[in-house]
């Protein structure tokens, strides 16, 4: 089965008509692959899929959930967390509050990683954490903060790398027990985030394409990692604009490891390592 441009357009248009989601400015190639995956998984052809979408808004919602990609892990890309620890978060050390928005928080690991880091830096009390995603399922998962242990054993390595070690000083080693933040149940194969972390963030459903800023606040730090890779250039710029508009001056935007701002918004940010600082 091949998904043609026209197929994709039908799909996007239908989805836009039935739901409020607008995928028209998503990356064609990625969206095609996801659509193909959905069609294969459901064993439907495009007509069937579109018919179902038209008839059943729940189905449409689920398709959206299927299509969106939710990959995250605790302390994903440790260098980024080193950057946050050493160069980004210290900038807000003297703030009274730190507003942090995780746009596209997925299953919440990034949110909890951030909170653990903040806690280790004694900044958690000041922080107001906002986390949003398009997919309500992953938001629910985020709220629970329960993850598979075996499959995600790498989380702990990352934890070690970010929290216990200091790349700038190899002699430094903070022996912080996992139990401080997690309950690990090897039998049930779960790694559960402690309650004091899970009850703090505000999780909201949010569509970067349509919803603008849900919170009546500006942010010191926006994390939107590995999201804009699914967007095309135009939508990327819109999102950058949104972020730029909702960052405090000198606020930071953190994109994914391989995401960069090119184009008109590039010179409105100053780059500190991986982070973009609003000029």
């Amino acid at each position, binding site marked *: 089965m091949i998904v043609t441009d026209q197929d994709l357009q039908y799909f996007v248009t239908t989805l836009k008509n039935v739901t409020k989601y607008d995928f028209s400015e998503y990356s064609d190639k*990625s969206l095609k692959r996801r659509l193909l995956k959905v069609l294969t998984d459901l064993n439907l052809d495009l007509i069937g899929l579109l018919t179902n979408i038209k008839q059943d808004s729940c189905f449409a919602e689920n398709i959206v959930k299927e299509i969106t990609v939710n990959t995250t892990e605790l302390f994903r890309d440790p260098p980024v967390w080193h950057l946050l620890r050493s160069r980004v978060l210290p900038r807000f050390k003297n703030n009274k509050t730190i507003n942090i928005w995780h746009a596209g928080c997925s299953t919440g690991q990034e949110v909890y990683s951030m909170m653990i880091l903040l806690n280790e830096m004694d900044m958690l009390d000041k922080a107001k954490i906002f986390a949003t995603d398009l997919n309500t399922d992953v938001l629910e998962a985020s709220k629970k903060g329960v993850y598979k242990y075996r499959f995600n054993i790498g989380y702990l390595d990352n934890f070690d790398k970010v929290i216990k070690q200091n790349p700038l000083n190899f002699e430094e080693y903070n022996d912080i027990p996992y139990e401080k933040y997690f309950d690990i149940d090897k039998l049930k194969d779960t790694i559960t985030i402690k309650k004091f972390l899970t009850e703090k963030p505000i999780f909201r459903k949010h569509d970067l394409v349509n919803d603008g800023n849900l919170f009546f606040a500006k942010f010191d730090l926006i994390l939107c990692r590995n999201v804009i890779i699914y967007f095309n250039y135009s939508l990327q710029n819109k999102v950058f604009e949104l972020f730029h508009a909702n960052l405090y001056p000198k606020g930071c935007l953190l994109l994914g490891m391989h995401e960069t701002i090119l184009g008109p918004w590039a010179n409105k940010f100053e780059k500190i390592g991986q982070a973009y600082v609003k000029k």
Partner: protein
Amino acid sequence: MKYTRNLNLNKQILLFTIPIVVILYAASGFSVFQLSKKRVLTSTQTEMEVYLNKMAEIVQLVEGQTGQGYSNSDYLILKPFFNQTAYYKSDFPFIFDNSGQYIIHAFKEGQRIPSILLQEIKRSRSKEGFISYTDYKDGHKQDRLISYKYIEPYGAYLGISVNKSDVLESLSQNKVVLILVVIFASLVFFLTITLILKPVIQLLKQITQAVKQLSEGENPDKIDFNQNNELGQIVESINDLIDNIKQKADFANEIGKNNLDAEFSALGEQDVLGTSLLNMRQSLKMANEEDGKRKSEDELRNWATAGLAMFGDILRQNNNNLAKLSDNVIQNLVNYLNANQGGLFIYNDDDPEFKHLELLSAFAFNRKKFFEKTIALGEGLVGTCAVEKETIHLKEIPTEYIRITSGLGEAVPTSLLIVPLKLEEAIFGAIEIASFHEFKDFEIDFVEKIGVSISSTLSSVKNNIRTNMLLEQSQQQREEMAAQEEEMRQNMEEMQATQEEMSRKSLEMEGMTAAINEALIFCELNEDGSISNPNNNIITLMGCTRGELEGENLSEFIHTDEKGMFRGTWSEVMSGITYKGTMHWVDKNSNELYILASISPAFDEFGSIFKIYFLGQDVTESKLLEIRAQKQAEEIEQTLLEIQVEQELNLQRDDEMKALLQALDHTCLITELDPAGVITYINNKNIQVLGGIKEEIEGQLIAEVDFVAKNNPKEFKKFWDNLSKGKKQNREFSLTLKGKEITISEVYTPIINDHNQVTKIINIGFDISEIKRKEKEMSALIAELETLRKKKQ
């Protein structure tokens, strides 16, 4: 005969005896009759002979008187003697001659005797005799008897005939009597026989009935008959038989009622039936005994079978819940055995280091052991039982070992049974049961059997649980795999999307780099300021080769005037601040170059500089222009001063103009136009004369408002062209406004500035309507005069 055979005895006897008797009577009657007939005939013969002799004497006497044969006188004398009968009504005497003709006869004289008779008489030598003959008279047959005697004198025969019937008439009366006697005798015989036979036959009937009933299996009543004859004996025997049969039937009934001890004795050794019955009773007694034995065995077997079935059910249910299963089992087992306590231990070998028995469930179990839920193999009775795999049955139990308690008290059980749960020598646990009654062998057997069933179930339950666990695990693993697969797929998708994004970016970067290389001079700088990777533009600009340029320090190119400043710039760059500015360079050929440059450091993730980009544009020309422009600016400054003076003059001039205009404003129609033809000002006089609203007209193009422009565009164009060229234009036009003809004379004056450009056009118009009207009146008058003149001519 067939018919007679089916008749009853009574009728048979009657049927056979009565004819015989009748025949006998008849025969004797007949004999009597014949005898008397013979006697009558003989006596008749005698009588007739007597009579004949008498008649012969008479004849003799008559002959004697008359002599000489037969004569008339004889006839006359004899005739009266022959007219009468002697004894019978028909025994008339007669005389017939040798020819057979009646000589003397009472009424047959002249007739002949039958010829047959005559012949017979003649044949007789004795000349007298007695003959029986048959005479046919008048067609009637008549048996007749004749007795004859030859009378010599007459030569004729004297005869007397008589009808036999007359002779036998009395005899026939006797015959009737005889018949009546026979009939009577027969009747008497019949009655006698009937009377004698009836009771016998009745009895026979009774006997028959009784025998018939007997033969049909019924038990008839005894026959009442008290005669000591043959019949009496038969009856007695039958009665005995009936008695006997009744007795045996009663006995058989008793046996039937299962009363095997009913009194009965055989009549004797020859009493086959009696002996058989007794034998039967014996056999039955034995069978009963055996049956009893079998029954009790059956009961036990049934108890065991029912128990096995029940436990089979119990074991089948809940076979996925070990605790519930064993609870059910032990509870039911204790109840079924009427025991008092029980416990079920399961062999647990999950931990190979500590294989032990685990008390899984207990019933009324309150001994100390209850709290010790695990028992090591070989420990205590239960442990031993599990090791030896043999049943332990204790009949004497140590007082402190186990106690059965109720609400009222406690007691030591009398019997303790520990049965291993084993299946093919594999141990699965043990059952311990305590009871106040002693366990019987069959109960122990039963528990052992149940033990096997339990073991088998435990084995399968363990397997099931293990299987379920494995299934669940595999299911979970499958789900996990699916989830992981999805996660992997998403990761893949992310990687792919990232890659695409990166390749897109790199394309963009390439494009940008290409554009930069095309348009700008670009090179990378090392931390010491040395150049690497210069692009073609910079190479061309510097007029040297790539080799010459690479490795060269940037500061080498800086114009000596700026070298000091550059050092500062460089250290700023090295501290991370991007430099932007115009640099003054000197190329290899000592040409001065101005470069608008940016020097940007690039940082790695830790914020340290790993590269410095130099980006610049050759702005020499514009820089030179700038320098020139600077010079010009100075010149302009001077000129500005001059202009200022001139401006003041202009201002003065303006004031004058204003005064003039004001004067004009009252008398003339003044319009101001910009060079494009837009009306910028119109005075009140103009409005007064030509109407319209000042604000509306102002801002409009003259071409849109102007009367001429509307009516004669060609002329207007020419007019405007001239104006635009700076030529002053006069014109005159008329129009009718509110019924009044208005004529305007206008002068358009273009205002020309220093550069010969029209900056403004001022129109001054005069209302010459009055003059024109008068002029018209004049010309009308002239025209009138002219016509008058022509008429005169």
